[in-house]
């Protein structure tokens, strides 16, 4: 069975982002970019399922600027078999990405799409759910365990929900979004990085897929959040309790 893994190129999670002085957005000039960490978990999961003999092919797909090729090469170095880039310089919002992915699903016919629960740039947490809706497929978000039973035509997913865990059985085909505890992604080894350069990578345009990617939301401004300033140091427990009772008045 084939698995499709959509991945997003985002600012590296170690980078402390800066808001542009004119309030138009985040300063991305000369900032290190990387694969969205939740998507890395998705790639790892698909590759492990392939290594376990459950999955036959892992296709990574990314939508965005030409440099997303690098992100796709990373996925190939981690074990994905092929890459597909939907190249555009346009701003892509989750609904547009979901529509592009729907078109790719139409071409590739995977039984499972597995992707990160959210990207760490726009923190939207929407694309997987939207894709499932557009395809009319079942969905399991925030997965911490995925067990595929291709013969029975279903996948059993344990999900991180408020207050605990829930396990769902979904009919295949399905969309699964990953949470942090699903796995720990491997590092790409040098031989695998070299091998990844030879793996096939196809490039398409949104027009080839007949998808209108116009944004629905306009960002009017981006500002820094109000800063919290450091308060005072207390000397001991007695002073702390005194402050909490008499100054902050948060304990009786």
């Amino acid at each position, binding site marked *: 069975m084939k698995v499709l893994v959509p991945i997003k190129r985002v600012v590296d999670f170690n980078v402390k*982002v800066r808001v542009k002085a004119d309030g138009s957005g985040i300063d991305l000039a000369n900032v290190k970019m990387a694969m969205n960490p939740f998507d890395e978990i998705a790639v790892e999961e698909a590759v492990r399922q392939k290594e376990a003999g459950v999955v036959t092919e892992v296709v990574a797909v990314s939508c965005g600027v030409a440099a997303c090729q690098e992100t796709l090469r990373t996925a190939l170095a981690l074990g994905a078999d092929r890459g597909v880039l939907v190249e555009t310089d346009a701003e892509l919002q989750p*609904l547009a990405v979901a529509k592009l992915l729907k078109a790719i699903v139409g071409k590739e016919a995977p039984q499972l799409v597995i992707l990160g629960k959210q990207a*760490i740039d726009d923190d939207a947490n929407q694309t997987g759910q939207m894709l499932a809706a557009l395809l009319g497929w079942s969905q399991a978000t925030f997965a911490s365990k995925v067990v595929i039973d291709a013969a029975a035509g279903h996948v059993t997913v344990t999900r991180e929900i408020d*207050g605990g865990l829930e396990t769902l059985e979904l009919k295949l085909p399905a969309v699964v979004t990953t949470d942090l505890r699903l796995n720990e992604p491997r590092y790409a080894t040098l031989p695998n990085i070299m091998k990844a350069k030879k793996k096939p990578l196809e490039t398409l345009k949104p027009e080839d897929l007949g998808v209108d990617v116009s944004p629905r939301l306009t960002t009017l401004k981006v500002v820094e959040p109000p800063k919290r300033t450091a*308060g005072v140091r207390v000397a001991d427990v007695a002073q702390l309790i005194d402050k909490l009772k008499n100054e902050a008045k948060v304990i009786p």
Partner: protein
Amino acid sequence: MSILVIAEHDNAHLKTATLNAVAAAVKLGSEIHLLVAGSGCDAVAEQAAAVAGVAKVKVADAAHYADQTAENLAALIHAHAGGYSHILAAATSNGKNTLPRVAALLDVAQISDIIAVEDADTFVRPIYAGNALATVKSADAVKVITVRTTGFDPVSAVGGSATIETLASASDQGQARLIGREITKSARPELGAAKVIISGGRALGSGEAYRQLLEPLADKLGAALGASRAAVDAGFVPNDYQVGQTGKIVAPQLYIAIGISGAIQHLAGMKDSKVIVAINKDPDAPIFQVADYGLVADLFQVIPELTAAL
């Protein structure tokens, strides 16, 4: 045009996150309807009717809504979306699971995790783990929105007198089946709703130390217990204790961070707390930069002292 708010509940009780979502809806200034989709959920409908500011409660009661699966909920909301300018839910795991699906069915954007309403089309939401706040304007006819609960003070759970109407169920999509749930049972308040939160980090060293030191303190203060991602990764406590960008976003009256260094990831989840106390033996820990009161000390010594003194 009215506003539809999706009630969060467990078929017996209306969850308080719904009150925060209604508070966001109040700022939009139109008539508010609450949708209760569940199974055997009459009690929830009655609680929903008592919520201040709600004009109508619409109840869809069917077996296939019992488990709140996204496929069935989204189909129902989509079927009844006509006449609404806005569809809102709290940004809980349920809301985040369901509303993007609704938005895609309606062919509109979804606006995630809003913390402020500027006008009927314009909203403020955190991006980049809360390191920036974006003001976004929607061009869609229907705005589908999840509401960060800490951004809006809850409306009163009582005092309303909404009418209750029955809504036709949509058909069972039959795509997902609940196998089971493991919900952490606790006599303590929920993290999302607690007035006081005691949160522990990696410096506690073990799950045993976490329980021995923090539980008595939490008992004294009637507090919920939380943890940093490092403490969760180290296996001291389950994942649903996690406070941070990838865990729960909280804003209690009092947040006590014990043995937590204060990674950006963690700060993103608690920096809107009213009063923050940090106890850490490293005087340079970043947590002190956001704490109202900092105590540089060995937690193994001062936590028992603090518990005894309260």
